[in-house]
């Protein structure tokens, strides 16, 4: 049985390889392969990969340990959902998932209507060159369908820290984001080849780039949320290399979506948009490379293998060389002169583009510097998180200002004093709130105050702009996606700053019966007990949280002891309140008498996730409004 599956699945991979090769040949306008058409081939690509992916899921579900991948990454006693997510909890499986998304985007684009046939053909051909490369890599260098000769009775198991429902959906969501930019890249190259990077092009690109961006945002947020409650360190962002690797394409993509909008409205900045499209996809690949190669020393790196990283590195190199030579050759021909005022929305977006690129550079240097010293000087070092926060914070202030003012300006030249008069109440309101906040909470750091002030301006102006009545008191359609995302970003920034300033941490050693204090709360250590679950044993402590003698909640931090493979994890117990989270983690007792408990008060965490959610929803709304209003005055 296993042998048949082995042949079928490898045949499917070869089938996709062949179809992609034929599809790629359509990049030159040849007469040999007019049949089969692109749609037919796109079907073959999709179905062959989808089937092999389903086969892999099936192998994990029935725990067929004749396959190496299943043996190394699964265990018969694992709960069903983790057998399922184990499919992409390893290198080979996650590459297959990556390819599945690649062919899915290829297929969806081939389905879309209203695009000239030649342009579609070239885009699909470029996408298929990438599919060919990745399937070849999968087939020859990291084949998920390899058999072993031994009859293993059971598998090794999945790292327990990955046995988490959130982590089951985090990689697919993140990958849809990363891989979505492959299509944007293909569209950019097709635009360069046909020399048609114009308003029409921007309208085609817009839904794809916005949805990829929304998925990437959601993927990063899920990873951060997972780290917050699973790693048990009380933080949500550590400026860890792997986190940075996902943040870098996000920053480039954020610049890109705004450039696509300017291009669509004013027909300017063609070259820059193309550069950003290439940059975003390259950074997505760098993200995959950094995580997969194992050259990073990170808390998030799993399933890594240095040899395979080389392939992705080579691939990134080829893509950069190819696309930038094409760009150098054709860039003069795509620049058409549209018009844009000096004091205008476009200028504001351009300035923020530069600020984003600066932040990108900061993150890039901080991530790459330790790698460079390690490889070149054989010297290990780490860049402290303070580097990022102190360097980025001043830029964020400027960024928030232009984010607030730009949507208020028109696309053509706008008189500044008119805007100032329009905005006076808004400024006064925000200033008052900021003053109250800073006095009440004794906040006297200028950077923090300024970030809160401009965030407030941004939030209030975006929210008021999205609720707009005309003279007949009817709610008119406004730019809801944009306003929601912008307000969300303001809320996120406010929450990040306040969280950093007001987080509190206490560490205690506790015996049963002890009363521990954290601010106005008392925690009574009630009892500790052992619990047996299907795939782990756990030590569970019970803390009763009281305020003024009244019981408010019970906290149950846990330590879990997994046996396949042997691992210990701490599970935090978190109470989410609107204004602050209370967070308890315990550690393995050093002696038998007491346990160590770490208690955190993390203010504004709920609001922080809320802001992030608004950004994601804003992106989805913008992606789904297909037809932009062209030449809006």
């Amino acid at each position: 049985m296993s042998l048949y599956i082995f042949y079928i699945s490898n045949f499917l991979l070869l089938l996709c390889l062949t179809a992609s090769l034929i599809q790629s040949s359509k990049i030159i306008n040849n007469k040999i392969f007019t049949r089969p058409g692109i749609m037919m081939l796109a079907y073959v690509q999709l179905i062959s990969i989808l089937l092999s992916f389903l086969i892999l899921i099936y192998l994990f579900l029935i725990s067929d340990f004749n396959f190496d991948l299943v043996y190394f990454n699964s265990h018969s006693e694992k709960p069903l959902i983790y057998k399922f997510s184990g499919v992409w909890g390893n290198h080979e499986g996650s590459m297959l998932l990556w390819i599945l998304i690649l062919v899915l985007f290829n297929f969806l684009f081939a389905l879309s209507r209203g695009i000239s046939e030649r342009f579609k053909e070239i885009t699909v051909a470029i996408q298929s060159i990438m599919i060919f490369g990745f399937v070849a890599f999968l087939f020859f260098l990291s084949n998920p369908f390899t058999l072993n000769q031994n009859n293993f009775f059971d598998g090794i198991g999945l790292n327990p820290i990955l046995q988490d429902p959130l982590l089951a959906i985090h990689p697919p969501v993140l990958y849809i984001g990363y891989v979505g930019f492959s299509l944007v890249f293909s569209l950019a190259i097709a635009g360069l080849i046909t020399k048609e990077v114009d308003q029409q092009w921007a309208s085609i690109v817009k839904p794809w780039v916005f949805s990829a961006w929304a998925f990437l945002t959601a993927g990063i947020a899920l990873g951060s949320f997972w780290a917050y409650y699973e790693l048990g360190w009380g933080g949500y962002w550590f400026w860890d290399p792997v986190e940075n690797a996902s943040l870098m394409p996000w920053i480039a993509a954020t610049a890109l979506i705004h450039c696509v909008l300017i291009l669509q409205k004013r027909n300017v900045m063609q070259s820059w948009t193309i550069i950003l499209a290439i940059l975003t996809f390259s950074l997505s690949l760098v993200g995959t490379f950094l995580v997969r190669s194992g050259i990073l020393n990170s808390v998030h790196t799993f399933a890594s293998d240095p040899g395979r990283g080389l392939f992705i590195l080579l691939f990134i190199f080829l893509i950069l060389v190819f696309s930038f030579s094409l760009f150098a050759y054709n860039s003069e021909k795509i620049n058409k002169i549209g018009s844009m005022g000096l004091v205008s929305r476009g200028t504001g977006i351009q300035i923020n583009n530069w600020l984003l690129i600066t932040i990108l550079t900061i993150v890039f240097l901080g991530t790459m510097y330790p790698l460079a010293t390690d490889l070149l000087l054989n010297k290990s070092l780490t860049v402290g998180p303070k580097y990022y926060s102190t360097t980025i914070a001043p830029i964020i202030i400027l960024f928030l200002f232009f984010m607030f003012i730009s949507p208020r300006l028109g696309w053509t030249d706008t008189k500044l004093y008119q805007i100032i008069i329009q905005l006076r109440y808004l400024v006064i309101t925000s200033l008052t709130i900021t003053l109250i906040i800073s006095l009440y909470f004794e906040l006297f750091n200028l950077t923090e105050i300024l970030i809160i002030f401009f965030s407030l301006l941004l939030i209030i102006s975006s929210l008021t702009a999205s609720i707009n009545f005309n003279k007949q008191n009817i709610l008119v359609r406004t730019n809801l996606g944009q306003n929601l995302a912008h307000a969300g970003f303001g809320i996120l920034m406010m929450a990040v700053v306040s969280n950093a300033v007001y987080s509190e941490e206490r560490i205690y050693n506790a015996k049963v019966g002890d009363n521990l204090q954290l601010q106005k709360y008392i925690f009574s250590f009630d009892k500790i007990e052992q619990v047996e679950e299907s795939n782990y044993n756990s030590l569970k402590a019970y803390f009763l949280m009281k305020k003024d003698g009244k019981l408010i909640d019970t906290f149950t931090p846990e330590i879990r002891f997994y046996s396949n493979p042997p691992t210990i994890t701490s599970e935090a117990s978190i109470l989410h309140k609107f204004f602050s989270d209370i967070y308890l983690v315990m550690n393995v007792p050093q002696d038998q008498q007491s346990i160590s408990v770490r208690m955190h008060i993390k203010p504004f965490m709920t609001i922080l996730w809320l802001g992030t959610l608004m950004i994601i929803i804003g992106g989805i709304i913008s992606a789904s409004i297909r037809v932009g209003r062209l030449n809006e005055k």
Partner: protein
Amino acid sequence: MTNLVKSRLIKFLLSLIIVSIAVLIIIFNLRDNIIYFYGPTELLKNSDKQGQIMRLGGLVSVDSFQNETDSIFYFSITDGDNKIDVKYEGILPNLFAEDKGVVVEGVYMNDGRFIANKVLAKHDENYMPPEVIETLKKSGKWQGE
């Protein structure tokens, strides 16, 4: 020089200046926040590093672990050749144990002791921090592949 060329040249020079200033600021900030990693032998050779924040890694030496109170711990970190005594106040990660790899962050004091304020947590008990492997390889004590 035509006006167009002139204005392009000015724009170019101006952006060059702005970019270099920005990069300089970034790099200076980067240098201030770098935390170096040392093994015990390396650290003993660099006694001028006393008083700086750094990371130290190696194996927790056998029979070195003591606790003064419930949350003040003493242990030493070794690479097989040399040892450095560490004092740490706080919570120890679940997987902390003698003869296992560990990385601590803190200050190397002028009395030769290392005051740690962080013991970096790791995921599974077979995991060895890459820096520690490197340190053990340097001292010839590495026994893995």
